[in-house]
């Protein structure tokens, strides 16, 4: 499709999508990456995202929604600017992952899957993030923090609050 006129995405993302659909033997293989990159830009998978991605790939909106509901990283509602994901799975649990989770709850004043009133932070208890040997581990958006203590966690949250946090996209 001719993108620039109709797209809801930035020129960079639109260009990335134009390329993504050409990479695979079938266009649909681009669906999951496109949803994730769309979410990175828009903040969540809005109705408009579903419509445009369905069109770009040439599948129904229902197909897109069906896929989107399967994957735990994809969401249909906004989260905080910094989504704090605390792993409490076994290796992290053994090294006080729940303590980190409780600490974040108190510190941010929100619970699992909630957003702070200023929209800056959201909190989520997540399954293993592949950092078990450096437990307890947390991911903020895409950035990993490991070997955590409550003191280190405070420092990290302070840094984000002051706009000094890492921001990998």
């Amino acid at each position, binding site marked *: 499709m001719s993108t620039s006129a109709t797209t809801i995405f930035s020129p960079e993302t639109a260009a990335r999508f134009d390329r993504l659909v050409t*990479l*695979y*033997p*079938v266009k*649909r*293989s*681009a*669906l*999951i*990456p496109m*949803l*994730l990159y769309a979410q990175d830009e828009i903040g969540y998978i809005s109705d408009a995202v579903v419509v445009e991605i369905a069109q770009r*790939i040439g599948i129904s909106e229902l197909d897109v929604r*069906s*896929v989107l509901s*399967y*994957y*735990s*990283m*994809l969401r249909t509602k906004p989260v905080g600017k910094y989504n704090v994901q605390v792993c*409490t*799975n*076994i*290796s992290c*649990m*053994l*090294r006080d992952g*729940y*303590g980190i*989770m*409780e600490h974040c709850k108190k510190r941010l004043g929100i619970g*699992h899957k909630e957003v702070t009133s200023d929209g800056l932070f959201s909190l989520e*208890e997540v*399954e*293993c*993030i*592949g*950092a*078990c*040997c*450096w*437990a307890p581990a947390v*991911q903020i958006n*895409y*950035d*990993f923090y*490991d*070997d955590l203590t409550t003191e280190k966690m405070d420092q990290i949250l302070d840094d984000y609050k002051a706009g000094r946090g890492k921001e*990998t*996209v």
Partner: protein
Amino acid sequence: MPRLVFHPEEVKIISRRFGQGAADIDKYIALDGYKAVQTAIEKGVDWIIAEMKASGLRGRGGAGFPTGMKWSFVPKQSERPKYVLVNGDESEPGTCKDHVIFLHDPHAVIEGTMIAGLAIGSKMGFIYLRGEYRYLLKIMEKAVADAYAKGFLGKNIFGSGIDFDIVTQTGAGAYEVGEESALMESLEGKRGVPRIKPPFPAVVGLYGGPTVINNAETIASVPHILLMGGEAYAKVGSERNGGTRLFGISGHVVNPGVYELPMGYNLKKAIYEVGGGISNGRKLKAVVPGGSSTPVLTADEIDVGLDFDQMGKAGTMLGSGGIVVIDDQTCMVEFALRTIKFYQHESCGWCIPCREGTDWLKKTIGRVHAGGGVAKDLDNIRYLAENMLGRTFCPLGDAAAMPTIGFIKKFRHEFEDHLNGKPCPYAHAEEPALV
């Protein structure tokens, strides 16, 4: 950022380039990179397969299937294109070894994928990373782009007349997608629901074409095997378990980390020498030896070699190589609960024994842990788990049932200690919420 660890007992083959800047293509080349693929082109398909079979390399994704044999199953002639699929979904709790490979040696994954492609006559490989590994995906993407820029990928690789392309792909959060056929569904842009087998991927896989799917560590081992020779690689390991593997030692040890040890290395030594022993001066209670789906061993059962066969004999599995060490202050009911909670969350919901079984197990173990259990619950847990075994379309049902059976069999007394309203004997300030 993952901390690199070293121990004199390690045998560094696959981790040889870790910490040496090998994500840079020139550095990789300086460290013997892209030599194995050129030798492979020169010597041909039969040589590659013979070396791989001689190496005794068995899949590092969990099941331990011999890699050379897997490759030889792919039909020589095929109307549909053949594919190589690298499984970097790494989501089994306790497992973070592929993480370190993508970070420190991305070109080894590319080179291994090319060699697998040559071996089966494929022109295209996919490297699939879990969605959470965005920073690693960027490292892989750059490595692939650099390999194209050097002319190592694309048309006529190394003057062979053979074309080979690699595409990197991201998932978006789903453990089940690590199962091979679910991964193919995901790569085709669908929900990660597995396929009925047979047909097996070697015959009908990605886009309906014959497909070799291997774990990222399996693939990254391949160039090293061709460089040192299959037989030499096999000798490093134990009988029918060639070479080394990356073991992730986590939990209550003094020096957790990813260590490369020879196959067959003693588990007790891995914990007490390599891992530095139990932290905080405590004693060992239990070990989950190969990722969360492998049945638990008690402290008395760990004098055993870390290979697929010896672990099988010990009543558990080598699995993904994620050794989770548990001290004597840990509540095994809580541990069992956290484990089943994970599998319940990740069940794709297709089979009733898995979907309902994991849910019931979570509820029952949760009730026991909270002190609301009755004596009958303990038999029910075991009965329920045993009846899930082998009754599902994919092995996730077993992956949930097997550890549960292990916990209730070996730590039944701890479950009993929670019955009749008794508080958790190991309770600490924060109780796990059941999300």
